[in-house]
């Protein structure tokens, strides 16, 4: 590898390719792309060490627009391809770009396993609750009753919740953001800094087939009342005095569930509002179920509790199993029960190393 002097700090522009971006005008993907391109220089990523791996769908065109290594693979399989990439070269920064159909329908199996194995990578799931590239069929995250070309009378199946799925699969990092949110780079940075599989659900507005489907919490108007931005060590507060008043999340100890409470005069302690601890898995399990009823959408880093990563374990085991052994192919081929055919066809058991004769 070339030994290079530390280069100047990169800019978002350095992460743009010369390829024409082919998403629909106004698509939320543009904003996510910008957020990623803003984040990469900030975290000190190097283009030659960065690999974007994607599946199939609108979101999966993403790698073509980032000036790094990129692999646009096949539908649903990005996590599996990324696993091979990372195991082959653990030094690489691997980002998986996927969508709700790609990650939770055709590729649900791989998403589950990459999370439970805890491959050190970032998984950005662009959730627009619709199949865009195939022209608007309902997806596994579409809400019940979604009318689409394949469900003209409305969908009847219950949607999957990506963050809940991830946590259930054993993810050690679960975060949420949305396309045009100014906080998205911060969420991406936290994902990057987490060692292990970092799962980020990004709500993305498909302006053609599912326009404004996230407006109930993402629309600028009333956002404060409908968004709970989580920060480690800070109370779970949302709303403001200008709108419906400041509210907080507390634990209903009797029923072991969360509860929304009013916070009077800023005294959140008195209201019993919980302080967000990113390592609290039990609370995370409740946060991923939001929003419903009076609960807002929980955004930011919901859960972050690192554990040893998969590739680390594989590398360590490979090393340990190889300790003190020489890669001697001739010896390998000559193991087991061997015999020598000599010039006078006098055979003799050489009794060579190993008795691993298996039939």
């Amino acid at each position, binding site marked *: 590898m070339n030994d290079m002097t530390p280069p100047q700090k990169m800019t978002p522009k350095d992460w743009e390719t010369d390829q024409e971006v082919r998403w629909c005008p106004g698509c939320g993907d543009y904003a996510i792309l910008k957020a990623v391109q803003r984040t990469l220089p900030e975290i000190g990523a190097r283009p030659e060490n960065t690999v974007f791996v994607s599946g199939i769908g609108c979101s999966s065109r993403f790698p073509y627009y980032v000036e790094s290594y990129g*692999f*646009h693979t096949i539908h649903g399989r990005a996590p599996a391809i990324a696993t091979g990439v990372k*195991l082959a070269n653990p030094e690489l920064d691997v980002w998986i770009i996927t969508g709700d159909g790609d990650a939770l329908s055709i590729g649900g199996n791989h998403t589950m396993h990459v999370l439970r194995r805890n491959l050190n990578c970032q998984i950005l799931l662009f959730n627009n609750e619709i199949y865009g590239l195939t022209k608007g069929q309902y997806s596994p995250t579409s809400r019940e009753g979604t009318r689409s070309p394949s469900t003209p009378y409305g969908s009847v199946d219950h949607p999957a919740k990506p963050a809940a799925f991830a946590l259930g699969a054993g993810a050690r990092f679960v975060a949420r953001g949305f396309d045009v949110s100014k906080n998205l780079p911060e969420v991406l940075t936290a994902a990057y800094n987490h060692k292990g599989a970092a799962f980020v659900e990004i709500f993305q507005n498909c302006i053609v087939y599912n326009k404004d489907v996230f407006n109930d919490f993402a629309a600028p108007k009333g956002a404060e009342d409908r968004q709970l931005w989580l920060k480690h060590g800070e109370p779970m507060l949302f709303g403001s005095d200008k709108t419906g008043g400041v509210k907080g999340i507390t634990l209903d100890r009797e029923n072991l569930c969360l509860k929304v409470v009013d916070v009077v005069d800023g005294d959140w302690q008195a209201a019993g509002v919980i302080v967000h601890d990113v390592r609290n898995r039990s609370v995370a399990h409740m946060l991923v179920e939001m929003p419903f009823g009076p609960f807002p959408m929980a955004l930011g880093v919901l859960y972050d509790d690192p554990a040893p990563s998969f590739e680390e374990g594989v590398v360590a085991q490979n090393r340990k199993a190889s300790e003190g052994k020489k890669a001697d192919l001739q010896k390998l*081929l000559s193991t087991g029960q061997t015999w020598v055919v000599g*010039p006078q066809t006098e055979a003799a058991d050489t009794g060579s190393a190993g*008795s691993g004769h298996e039939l």
Partner: protein
Amino acid sequence: MASAAEIITPKEAEGALAPESVVVRFAGDSGDGMQLTGGQFTLSTALAGNDLATFPDFPAEIRAPQGTLFGVSAFQINFGSSDITTAGDAPDVLVAMNPAALKTNVKDLKPGGLIIADSGEFTKRNLEKAKYEASPLEDGSLSPWRVLAFDISQLTMDSVKPFGLGNKEALRCKNMWTLGLALWMFDRSREPIVAWLRAKFAKAPELAEANIAALNAGHAYGETAEIGGSGITLPQYHLDRAAQPQGLYRTITGADAIAYGLVAGAQLAELPMFYGGYPITPASSVLHALSKLKEFGVTTFQAEDEIAAIASAIGASYAGQLGVTCSSGPGIALKGEAMGLAIMTELPLVVVNVQRGGPSTGLPTKTEQSDLYQAVYGRNGDAPLPVIAARSPADAFECAIEACRIATQYMTPVMLLSDGYIANAAEPWKVPDVDALEPFPVRFLDAAQEGGLLPYARDTNLKRPWIKPGTPGLMHRIGGIEKQVNTGHLDYSPANHQAMTDLRRDKVLGIANGIPDQDVSQGQAGGKLAVVGWGSTFGPIHQAVRRARAKGQDVSHIHIRHIWPMPKNLGELLKSYDRILVPEMNTGQLKTVLRDQFLVDAEPLNKTSGQPFRIAEIEAAIEELLK
């Protein structure tokens, strides 16, 4: 269309036994340890210097109900002083550990052949399970054969009495008692078995000693037995050593040979290997073998499914390792789309298919050659990839190396075809000299070409450069969407797709320039008849042609390793014969490809019973064609 018969005729049997070889089949309940018995007998036979071939045949169920017909597990070995290339047609000796084993195997036994049966297992209950109305040992139905029945169960129990084992454990030593008897019959040394038992039961020495006692008792029984009233004494065979080239030998199964060949191939390419696998019969043994070889730079990954297995291997190839995946037909079907990705992105990849009977789940533990179409044609789009087929366990080593060579030298996925027979069968193998293997080191692109980076520029072999992520200045994007010539950018334009389709085709066809001409393995170019085979039919075709030629018939044997692209001289070679016979364990797949490629009148001989061809079946077909 000819099809192979199931039952051996007396005439056929007469001709089948070369005097210098013997075929023994051990058959018992799947819990009786017949594979183990066969394996250890194979070992002692190899050590005695005989050439040999084996055929393990076991049920798909792990613990089939005891005593049932479908729970019978068998192991056949053909050994002798001559050139052995098949597991033999009809056994000379059948060891039947229970009525079900007798029932399912006796029809294969040569007339006049010897049955050794454990009379202790011929109980009313077991006879019922095997659907015998009366004991065949007593009703005269075994009159075409010689029968030696004695209570092996009781004899075993007696021999292990001093070790105080429970009934069940004591009876487990039956296979060793039987092995001891077989070793006596064929004048084999017990020493390697004793050493093996001591190693196997190192943690339970009393079990080791009990098994050794059973082994010795079986052996002693052969020495001293007087078979009351039968008029038969136990025959003892002495087989000369086979004449083999000098050198170091071992026995090897196809699964191990493929694993070792892949390791060798990666070393010759100077690459670490990444193996993505998913458990499937009969391919799992390759995964097992490689999992133990981490010091050779092998990473093995048991993926969540067949698709993830190949996808991870493609990811590893993309990142600069030699990606390998292995499966059997149903798994290969699942990998189809990913193979297309490897073809489109032009990444090296070795895909091993250990074929089994199909379609669907088919016959998981039985052998077939019915995935040739799948290998050559089985993907969406015009998706050419090279296909190589191994002919025997030992040949699988070379074929695996060849697959690695083509994959890395042409930047392409390669399909290596093996089958259940090759994977499980063992044969003696002259250990190759590693230093004599020709290296093919890989060079990664480390700087952009003159005029700028072109990830899809081509060399004279039409190969594109291999660029590892992590290389500064060579960032680029690849994927499954049609690539632009040279740049690799997305390009759906008509002229570009035409050009890229042609390039992918020409690149794979061009591999024919880098492989040897097709040889004639027996006989000569030109003549009345060529028997053309591929894969594991090598053994029976070889013997059938040998016998036919010994009778003065004008017949030659051609065995094709490179299924796609085919050797450049093959068409001309085939056209030099009056007739072409293609025996295959499928309904005529190579035959169709040969007809398509060369417009020759290839005639099929097909067998899809899950069993390998018998020599006599092919011999009869040759006879028929030359009439």
